[in-house]
């Protein structure tokens, strides 16, 4: 157990793990994504109020869900990195911030495209939309701060502190539709009293959320792999790995 956990702190072991995690995640992703897309775009019936425009939900909700989940992951990695001084956590955190920023961007863009035909406007300064925009700025702030500091160890620490402070925004986003009277609709999936969505519409949405998690995982690992190589390029294990790779090809 401990040695398994410890392997997550070691860049060379994690690097090798990435090499077989990537194909495994991709194989897992394809059928789930296919079901989500076919179910969402074709099999699910049109909404009785919104018609076919509701189908934007199948990319909007997963993007928004991931934008918040990835922020929690970023904060957790930052916390572990700061407390136990694990370099690998900081490398994972930076990749998570990059992917998280893109998913927040997607949540905002798909929301705007959905808002135009349904609300009659691309954008409104209401609580949900504004707090989600703030989330994008937090991600961008993290990345900008990290890039601005030439000393990477210092950059890791300072941007991690920013990531931890920004956690305050996550419950604000989540409860914004409850606390304030907003144009954005309330929760659909996490309601306890009664389901607000029919199964033929819900199941593809759940599949898309799982697919987005897998996609985010793949994107984070792809970026982390580069980050490890960039930071560890002088390490002996990188040289050994490259040599063995080259000899494998020759043999």
């Amino acid at each position, binding site marked *: 157990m401990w040695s398994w956990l410890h392997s997550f702190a070691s860049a060379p072991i994690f690097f090798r793990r990435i090499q077989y995690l990537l194909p495994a995640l991709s194989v897992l992703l394809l059928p789930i994504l296919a079901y989500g897309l076919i179910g969402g*775009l*074709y099999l699910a019936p*049109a909404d009785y109020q919104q*018609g*076919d*425009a509701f*189908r*934007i939900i199948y*990319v*909007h909700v997963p*993007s928004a869900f991931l934008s918040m989940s990835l922020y929690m992951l970023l904060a957790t990695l930052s916390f572990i990195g700061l407390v136990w001084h694990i370099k690998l956590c900081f490398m994972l955190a930076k990749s998570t911030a990059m*992917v998280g920023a*893109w998913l927040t*961007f*997607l949540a905002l*863009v*798909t929301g705007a*495209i*959905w808002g*135009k*035909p349904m609300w009659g406007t691309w954008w409104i300064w209401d609580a949900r939309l504004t707090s989600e925009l703030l989330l994008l700025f937090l991600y961008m702030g993290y990345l900008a701060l990290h890039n601005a500091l030439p000393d990477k160890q210092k950059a890791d620490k300072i941007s991690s502190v920013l990531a931890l402070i920004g956690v305050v925004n996550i419950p604000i986003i989540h409860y914004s539709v409850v606390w304030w009277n907003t144009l954005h609709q309330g929760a659909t999936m996490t309601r306890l009293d009664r389901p607000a969505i029919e199964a033929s519409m819900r199941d593809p949405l759940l599949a898309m959320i799982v697919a987005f998690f897998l*996609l985010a995982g*793949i*994107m984070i690992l*792809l*970026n982390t*792999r*580069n980050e490890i*190589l*960039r930071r560890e*390029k002088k390490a002996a294990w*990188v*040289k050994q790995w*490259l*040599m063995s790779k*080259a000899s494998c090809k020759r043999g």
Partner: protein
Amino acid sequence: MQTWLMMGGYAPYVWTAFGVVGVVLIGNMVVPYWQYRVLLQTLKKEII
């Protein structure tokens, strides 16, 4: 097929949303993969 593509008159919105998401997600996998290939090439030249 034709009626499906029309999306009940919401085609521009639905397909733009899915299109933007597709481009961003695929880009976020292709670009780091491409960077990885370049990185491997330069590291090989430096080390071996």
